[in-house]
């Protein structure tokens, strides 16, 4: 066996070993307190092009706090933190994540991606949109591109870490999505049942942060900064379980 082949084999074994010992971090997010009532997006309903895309009888509403019957909280970005994770993004080779524009709303509205990962923005609507990113981090460049009905997907890449980088449509100014860019693959967004799973985390001690876009906002910060609820965990081969409570006063 040549030296090159040996090195490849060793690397493969090391990777397999890591996956073999890596565990999943799971948990659930619960909301404490009463969130504000969501509002009907009346400009959408009244818009000539978008209004007819809304199914009859439905009235689209804002989705600031997506809360389940037992206070399960969706759209919370959960991220591992630690110096040993910095710069471990595999975004360049990771499959793209998809952000759709459907019935003049972004779907989903909260998502997370690795730095360098491709974000495909689709336009499933028969109307024109423009996709306008407004980053706060100096490492990320603002872009504003039109996307006609039926136009090819637009590709966006976020090079630097940033929390809740805003995507907006200026043509339909109620359309927003927020993408958190992380420079490693260990993050998740909580689902409608409030649960999240961060897969294949190497064993070790970490800090873990849960950020809800509204609840984590640092007052008086402009551009907006976010500070979530932080905990410490130890991940073993069996993984780890950590729950969060996010409070709305």
């Amino acid at each position, binding site marked *: 066996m040549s030296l090159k082949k040996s090195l490849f084999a060793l690397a493969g074994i090391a990777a397999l070993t890591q996956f073999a010992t890596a565990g999943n971090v799971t948990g659930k997010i619960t909301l404490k307190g009463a*969130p*504000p*009532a*969501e*509002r009907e*997006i*009346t*400009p959408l309903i009244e*818009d*000539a*092009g*978008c209004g007819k895309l809304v199914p009859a009888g439905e009235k689209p509403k*804002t989705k*600031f706090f997506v809360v389940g019957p037992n206070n399960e909280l969706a759209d919370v970005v959960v991220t591992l933190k630690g110096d040993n994770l910095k710069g471990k993004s595999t975004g360049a080779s990771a499959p793209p994540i998809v952000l759709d524009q459907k019935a003049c709303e972004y779907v989903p509205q909260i998502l997370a991606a690795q730095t360098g990962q491709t974000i495909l923005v689709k336009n499933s609507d028969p*109307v*024109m949109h*423009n996709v*306008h990113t*407004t980053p706060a981090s100096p490492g990320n*460049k*603002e872009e*504003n*591109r*039109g996307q*006609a009905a039926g136009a090819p997907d637009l590709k966006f890449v976020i090079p630097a870490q940033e929390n809740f980088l*805003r995507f*907006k*449509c*200026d*043509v*339909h*100014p*109620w359309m*927003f999505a927020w993408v958190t860019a992380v420079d490693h693959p260990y993050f998740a967004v909580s689902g409608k049942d409030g649960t999240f799973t961060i897969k294949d985390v190497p064993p070790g001690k970490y800090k873990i942060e849960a950020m809800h876009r*509204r*609840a984590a*906002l640092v*007052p*008086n*910060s*402009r551009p*907006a900064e976010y500070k979530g609820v932080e905990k410490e965990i130890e991940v073993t081969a069996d993984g780890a379980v950590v729950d969060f409570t996010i409070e*709305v*006063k």
Partner: protein
Amino acid sequence: MEAAASSQRLFLSSDCLTANGSMNQTAAQRWRHCFAVLTALATLILVGIGGLVTSHGVGMAVPDWPTSYGYNMFALPISTWLTGGIFHEHTHRVVATIVGTLVVALMRWLGGNASRRPLIIIGMAEILAGLGLLAIGPDWKGAGHFLSGIGGVVLLAGIVWVKNQTAEGKLPTLGWWAFWLVQLQGLLGGLRVVLDAHIVADVRLGTAFGIVHGCLGQAFLVLVAIIALMTSGWWHRFVQNDFKPATGANELPQSTLLRRWFLFATVLISAQLLIGATMRHQHAGLAIPDFPLAYGALWPDMSTEAIAKYNLQRVEITEAHPITAFQIALQMVHRIVALLIAAAVIVCWRKTSAGTPLRRVSALWVGLILVQVSLGAWTIWSNKAADVATAHVVVGALSLVTGAYGCLISFRRLTGNRFATAADSASKTVLADRISV
């Protein structure tokens, strides 16, 4: 009632609509006045559409300039034009082009035959400068197209062979001011789009240019409205026959005080418009959601904890920036200045005498300010409905114009002995102004 009647007498009975009071004007002067009124009305409409753009938060719905989605501005497909916020932004650009052309024509009219040569030189220089910018690189493409385009219009205005007289008094100078301001305003509007994302000294240029563009638009409206007033037969008689600027020796102390009140109230309105433009271009929605109280108190809690709570509880639909203590303070200042303006305008009205032009102006002014305060309250109660917020901008602009008219008239008044010497004027009854005497 008095305010409505004032409006009719002072503005609607303009010489271009009736021959009333136009005995001292030639037909050409009347047509010139009509054109100036048309330009002022077009500018007011433009201010309104600009207000709609900001109220809807669609300033970047067309991300390129002076092209629109790569099309020549006048070739944008109708289907695209009618899509969402593109409609407001693109219409604003088209109407702005019309206003720009009207102002160049107005300048040519006011400047007379003597303005032809400078217009030709400026037009050619702008075309060459525009082509030069295009050659520098793609970053300058927008400004290059804009300059060469407007240079073409200016050149055309200079080439037009009409031997008309130069307008009297300061009108040509005011025309040149309008000529330069409209171009600067157009450039600022374009730069607000193309430099939107640039940040200088922690200030987003899109926001900074937006505020300056909004305020300059109001100042430009005042200038064009003043030209419309000063081209009227009413003003002609006011200056030439009945009233002349008072000298310090003959001036009554009361009228000096009145002038100061008019000036004070107008300056306050200007400051208020600046505050309003700053609030609107923050794109943070309503910083305070209730009125007349503020977060349920006379003075809102602006502690860090309170700001966090406000942001958690607000549900904005179109303007997603969180609010800060600065924005809350700014809206409180806006409310206080509104009270001061209302008080100052009422003082102006009370200090004028019945039946005088200044009385009519100030009555109209009081009416406008009351409407404006109501619209301000309604803006909050409607959660910043775009049409209500835009009406607030338009009535604010009209209040500023009315204040400028009041200042202009009060500073040109004749008092004391000079008034007596003008007593033989046929229209003295209409024009006599015995303010505060």
